[in-house]
């Protein structure tokens, strides 16, 4: 019984990571109706930057904040320079661009930081108050950090004027322009946030899975599965979807099929959700006018 409960909690901890990536994906999707395939590689690259800063001797939390800021800025720049020209282009073109970004970031990670697997420190000391019966210190710590970020994001969108403007721009860009919102910049800020959240997820997951250029590939897929499961236009759904996927992954891995087929599980989840529940558990049903 205890092992079962432990699997669930461990799944929830992983689920936080998946949920964060899912959230980043949903943020971009809500604003642009595009899925950012490069999200994982961008997160990995950000984590490498954090690693490099720590190697240079910076204290963890300073490196953390700097990486957060750099990722945000990079996200904004990428939207402004690379994505704006293809905003109105067909889907295939956008998919191309995202794949291109994926390739470039992956290669940059490998080229600048080489392919040896690196250890990434956890800011949460092993034997601290954070350690509980079911969560390791790092798991609790990540969970709390994620929660804090999610709440901050929620507050930002719900209570600040900029957050309101961003929500408006995502829902109805034309009306948003008519009240003077600079919609293009709102998209850029959305990208900035998504990049920053991705960096956060990377830094939280790296201590457990170790840092190398392909760290996030499987996690990205789980992020997609979570976003789709939760309803790709619903941020809360993304987070919940992540938790569900995390727990499912662990339970299936421990009791049903072993841990070697994780990506196949993701595949089945994705295809299953898309076929049986296209708007996910919490998404809005979209009816297109013919």
């Amino acid at each position, binding site marked *: 019984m205890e092992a079962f409960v432990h699997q669930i909690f461990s799944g929830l901890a992983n689920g936080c990571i998946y949920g964060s990536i899912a959230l980043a994906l949903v943020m971009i999707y809500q604003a642009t109706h595009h899925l950012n395939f490069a999200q994982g590689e961008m997160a990995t690259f950000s984590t490498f930057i954090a690693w490099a800063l720590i190697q240079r001797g910076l204290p963890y939390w300073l490196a953390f904040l700097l990486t957060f800021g750099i990722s945000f800025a990079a996200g904004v720049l990428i939207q402004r320079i690379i994505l704006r020209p293809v905003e109105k282009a067909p889907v295939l073109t956008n998919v191309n661009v995202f794949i291109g970004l994926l390739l470039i970031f992956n290669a940059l990670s490998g080229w600048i930081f080489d392919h040896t697997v690196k250890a990434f420190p956890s800011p949460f000391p092993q034997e601290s108050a954070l350690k509980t019966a079911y969560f390791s210190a790092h798991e609790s710590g990540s969970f709390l950090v994620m929660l804090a970020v999610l709440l901050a994001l929620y507050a930002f969108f719900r209570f600040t*004027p900029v957050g*309101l*403007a961003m*929500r*408006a721009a995502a*829902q*109805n860009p*034309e*009306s*948003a*322009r*008519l*009240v*003077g*919102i*600079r*919609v293009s910049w709102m998209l850029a800020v959305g990208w900035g946030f998504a990049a920053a959240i991705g960096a956060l997820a990377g830094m939280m997951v790296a201590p457990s899975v170790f840092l190398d250029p392909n760290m996030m590939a499987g996690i990205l897929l789980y992020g997609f599965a979570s976003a789709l499961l939760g309803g790709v236009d619903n941020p809360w759904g993304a987070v919940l979807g992540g938790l569900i996927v995390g727990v499912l992954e662990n339970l299936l891995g421990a009791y049903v099929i072993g841990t070697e087929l994780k990506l196949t599980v993701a595949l089945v989840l994705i295809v299953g959700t898309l076929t049986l529940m296209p708007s996910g558990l919490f998404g809005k049903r979209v009816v297109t006018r013919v």
Partner: protein
Amino acid sequence: MPEASLLEVKNLHAAYGATQVLHGIDFGLQSGRITTILGANGAGKTTTLRAICQMVRTSGSALFDGQQLVGKATEEVVRLGVAHVPDGRGTFTALSVDENLRLGAHVRRDKQRVVEDLERMYARFPRLGERRHQQAGTLSGGEQQMLAISRALMLRPKLLLLDEPSFGLAPKIVTEIFRILRGINTDDGVSMLLVEQNAQLALELADRAYLLETGRVAVSGTSRELMANESVRRSYLGV
């Protein structure tokens, strides 16, 4: 006594992609006045308003308060003091009534007066006040129209563009809305450019009128002149 010309449009062309819709129209609006643009479906009325807001490809000249609008981004036109109530109302349906109104004041810096204006809107439109935290998409047609107009007014605009405010609404509600519009014009001095299919109501409200036919100005004059015009009466007033 010539009043200040708030909006002066000369030789305005507009196109959707390769399709030319406006073929060089001229019209004007005096400060504090109401001008209406009439015409049948497809005449280019909605396009005219969209052209002023730079939502379509335009060429020609549109001087607003001395500033050239052609070539600016929509967001910049709004910042000059032009508020557009689009056809279909353009409400943020997933957001609350209150959030919609606050978005109307997005470009304003005077926070305190925004709060005051918000309360004034609720006082003027009690039905919106009752529903201030309700999702805008759940409002009735008439309420959404009031919301759209209020949102535009939250900008404290110099010029209010209205695209078919009577569309799809019951006659009683339309009458009420037009009464409110007159009040906004006389009490707050907001200039208005009104596009309407309902020529009768529009001519009763407006001072000047322009009749568009296939992207060109066919008739122009004061409302009284148009109301007396034989062909206008026959084609658009059903008299």
